[in-house]
């Protein structure tokens, strides 16, 4: 019987990520993606965590090695409750996010509520 070829896709629950500190989340995602995994995050990352992830990705890019990530998240929703307005701080509700190696995951189309992506088994 031939070995099944493909890629690994991990679907990460909101609960799993909520247990991690922001820096742990970023490290976890980077490590998994560098191993070639595609991650689907049920809740996504906060905008600040997304920025940290981009920053750390840049520090790890190497010629002929890791070339970065493909990340696609739906636009966040802003909770403009009275409480939030009183504190003059917005609560951002992040949404589902797909992250993978840039050389294997390619976004085909994206709109406010739909992400269409192509996953390649060949680098």
């Amino acid at each position: 019987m031939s070995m099944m070829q493909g890629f690994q896709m991990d679907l990460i629950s909101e609960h799993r990520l909520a247990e991690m500190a922001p820096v742990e989340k970023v490290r976890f995602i980077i490590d998994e993606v560098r191993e070639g995994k595609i991650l689907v995050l049920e809740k996504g990352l906060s905008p600040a965590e997304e920025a940290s992830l981009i920053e750390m990705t840049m520090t790890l890019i190497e010629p002929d090695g890791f070339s970065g990530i493909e990340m696609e998240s739906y636009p966040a929703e802003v909770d403009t409750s009275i409480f939030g307005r009183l504190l003059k701080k917005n609560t951002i509700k992040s949404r589902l996010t797909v992250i993978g190696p840039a050389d294997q995951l390619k976004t085909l189309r994206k709109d406010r509520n739909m992400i269409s992506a192509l996953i390649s088994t060949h680098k």
Partner: protein
Amino acid sequence: MGVIKKIRRNFADLFKKVFKKQNARIGIYGPPNAGKTTLANRILRDWTGDAMGSVSHIAHETRRARRREGVTIKANGGSITLDIIDTPGLATKIDFHEFMEQGMDENESKRRAKEATEGVIEAVKWLDNLDGVILVMDATEDPFTQVNVTVIGNMEARNLPLLIAANKVDLPNASASTIRDAFPQHPMVSISALEGKNIDTLYEEIAKRFG
């Protein structure tokens, strides 16, 4: 210099430092090749007479953030003085092979890629030090890029003003309405930074949003 004169001068300096209103710092953000430096050059040429930096059709031409302090823009019957920061294009991936495809040799491409990664880090770090953002989007491209989503999310989380410049509307396949529909919660001005189209409307919005 007499002691009293010296004390008076030191006191005046201290007074200036304590009470001088700092200009609002406005970052020009966007993906590579959206036209950020072209816009920064347009603003500076219109209001100061010089330019911010060189532009190129090859991505990541701007690889270091550049700040120009004290740019006074006159609009809506008043004036506003800003510090303008032109940031390197944000990206989640950088592959030196793409520069080689544009005709650069391997060493030059690798150097540009390395500098581009540093530029992205610098642009991300600037997000913590701004009072507002002009997000430049290429109106011929899909507006839902991750860079746009991340920048908008960061400004919304900080409750800081954001103005979208839908750039390159001089091109036939541009669709500013697609950008407006994608992010209806933020003000948007369709412009051509290259040709100067609608640039006065942009200045009016800058004065309104960041004044």
